[in-house]
């Protein structure tokens, strides 16, 4: 069945190249400027080509914040503008998205959340037809995620040892100038930049990269009803190798107004970025193209094969979370991921989002330390039916706001 899916992808590439569909979602212009520390306002963006991308609300898994779930019920997709530039050593991205409210996490509050954005790359070598799972990667296919959020100064508790400066100022013995000096010192040792980078191979495994490697430079700025976020990083380091003709990238944005954080976000599918001057990236670009099957026939096949028994299929169906909801799957899953998941459900099984959060409905069992999906294996499907089903599933996405 592995063979079947590979030959299908080969067929899809061939079809795509015949139809001349091989344009990347984003084109990274080659520039001669240093990109190591550039922000969203850098001049280099004047030379860049902007593409429109769509970010879809994450609905595959349920989260347990009641207010946030209410605020995000029937969330619509968002449009954003993205540009990229590279100079052969570094690559930089700029994303601009509309957000009517500037939400900054600050002050002595327990229930406010920050706006922010993330950029995801596959970690290490990647194969165009088996990219990591879009949500935090999957076992054996890790991802690196860069995150920048509008969080005002915060204080890392570990490793600094300066307990005295963690005191409430009113519980110090200080007054006047001494107290001012104390407060200044507290401010100075706080972290004013939230920027973080993570490596993950599935939900829950996400681990912050704090090994001292200077990975990236991400900036975030708000201007007239929208955010601008920039990320610059080297094309190659111990975690990623992006120095190819074309690379996959995915974006996510968070809206603090809707109590967004973590999985409560809008995200893209894997998008292709062609790096100008790096050769022919058509293999990856084609692999990310949508399936070409018959949508109506696919819808019927999804119904007759009983997918709705465990998955919420259309947004109008009742969510049951016996399996991941598919109501926005077309927004953020590639055709090759859908093919792989139908033919071989155990190929990509992400660890349960919440440990025993759905203990009544096991998404997978563990056999000899390996996750085995409880989904039926559909490897017996004929190639055309599969392609039709994938084409239908790719139409399942929220409308754009």
């Amino acid at each position, binding site marked *: 069945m592995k063979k079947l899916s590979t030959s299908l992808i080969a067929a899809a590439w061939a079809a795509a190249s015949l139809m001349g569909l091989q344009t990347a979602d984003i084109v990274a212009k080659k520039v001669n400027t240093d990109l190591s520390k550039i922000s969203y306002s850098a001049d280099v963006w004047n030379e860049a080509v902007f593409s429109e991308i769509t970010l879809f609300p994450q609905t595959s898994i*349920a*989260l*347990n*914040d*009641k*207010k946030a*779930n209410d605020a995000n019920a029937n969330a619509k997709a968002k449009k954003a503008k993205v540009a990229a530039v590279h100079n052969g050593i570094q690559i930089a991205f700029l994303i601009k998205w509309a957000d009517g409210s500037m939400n900054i*996490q600050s*002050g*002595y*509050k*327990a*229930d406010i959340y920050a706006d922010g954005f993330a950029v995801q790359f596959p*970690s290490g070598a990647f194969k165009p037809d088996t990219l990591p799972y879009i949500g935090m990667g999957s076992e054996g296919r*890790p991802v690196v995620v860069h995150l920048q959020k509008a*969080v005002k100064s*915060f*204080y*890392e*508790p*570990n*490793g600094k*040892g300066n307990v005295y400066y*963690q*005191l*409430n100022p*009113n*519980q110090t013995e200080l*007054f*006047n100038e001494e*107290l001012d000096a104390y407060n200044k010192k507290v401010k100075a040792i706080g972290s004013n930049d939230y920027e973080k980078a993570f*490596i*993950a*191979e599935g*939900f*829950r*495994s*996400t*681990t*912050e*990269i*704090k*090994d*001292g*490697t200077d990975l990236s430079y991400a900036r975030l700025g708000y201007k007239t009803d929208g955010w601008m976020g920039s990320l610059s990083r080297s094309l190659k380091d*111990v*975690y990623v190798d992006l120095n190819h003709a074309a690379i996959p990238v995915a974006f996510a944005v968070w809206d603090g107004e809707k109590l967004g*954080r*973590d*999985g409560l976000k809008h995200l893209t599918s894997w998008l292709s970025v062609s790096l100008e001057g790096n050769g022919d990236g058509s293999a990856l670009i084609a692999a990310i193209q949508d399936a070409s099957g018959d949508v109506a026939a696919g819808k019927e096949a999804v119904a007759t094969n009983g997918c709705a028994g465990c998955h919420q299929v259309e947004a109008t169906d009742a969510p049951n979370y016996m399996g991941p909801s598919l109501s926005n799957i077309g927004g953020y899953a590639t055709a090759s991921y859908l093919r792989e998941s139908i033919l071989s459900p155990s190929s990509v099984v992400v660890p349960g*989002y*919440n*440990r*025993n*959060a*759905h*203990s*009544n*409905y096991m998404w997978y069992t563990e056999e000899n330390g390996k996750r085995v999906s409880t989904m039926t294996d559909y490897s017996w499907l004929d190639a055309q039916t599969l392609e039709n089903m994938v084409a239908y599933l790719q139409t399942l996405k929220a409308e754009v706001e």
Partner: protein
Amino acid sequence: MSKRQLAMVMDLNKCIGCQTCTVACKTQWTNRNGREYMYWNNVETYPGAGYPKNWMELGGGFDAAGDLQAGVIPNLEADYGVPWDYNYDELSTNNLIAGNAKPGFSPNVEPTWGPNWDEDEGAGMFPQDNYFFYLPRICNHCTNPGCLSACPRDAIFKREEDGVVLVDLDRCQGYRYCIAGCPYKKIYFNPKISKSEKCILCFPRVEQGLPPACAQQCVGRIRFVGFLDDEESQVYKLVHKYKVALGLRQDYGTQPNVYYVPPTESPAKFDADGKIIEGSTRLPIEELEKLFGPGVHDAIKTIKSEMQKRKETGESELMDILIAYQHADMFRLDNNYYQEVAKSKGNRLAPPVDTRYIVGKHTAGAHAINFYHGGDFKAGGHH
């Protein structure tokens, strides 16, 4: 499930609501570093809104099928209460009495709610049938913790050696699903460090053979601490032998490990003329059933019959335990258990980080976390 479970029993018949436990905990852990509003230990009046306000109505926990339930994250001002400070600083520059428009100290925020805000209000009408009792609450260090289940980052873990539930602050990203998931609302968001924090059952004290500060300081000696599988411990006897100590809101499905001896006695009601109504009790049994489940009937029956036995024969092991003669008997922690655990781990006590993530797999290098007891654990990998 952890190999062993440390548990606490609180005898509600003896709690006088003095808040010494609250203060012991606050000065030990939560008077600084963004925790000022938190009360890892609080004592609330029941019936009442409690702390945070109406916590029993904020969701979390599991349904009968074992699925995690959605919950609400309380608001700091409205539900927890802002810890206000007075303008002590002005003492050195202003005369706060003479010629001052607002004489005396004034709070920097107008207080609208706080822990113990509705102290002693209770329910019923004074004087004929009003009633209340005190309910001290800490983290229940549950066997099936709602907070742990809700965390999308594996940042909450339950220690193998004693079942203490801890937040791995190195992994926590401050998403706060844990707060929604905990039906007791005993895990808090620290805005200063943007991470969640909670009662740690004073594990650094416990590892040295000392009981948690709240239990040590309790003037009424209502708190017993010990391992649930230690048949010599008074905790074991109260929970398993006599079955007079019961978990709070076991219907939440988290299997709490703090147990309560329910209030057994309550005064009689008065009639319209202020005369005692013989045989009446002010505290409705339904309230106790709601808090402690159907086992409360047998628990009360056992306590009453042991009281009677003590009166008649002068002997009752249960009454002797509940009288709490000696701290040494109430707390059974030492016996070198933690020293043995440490020895098995190369003479290091357990780090307050999730050991599953100590060894790096994907990160190029690990980063060191320094702890007070000198360990420099390498964290930052995964699996």
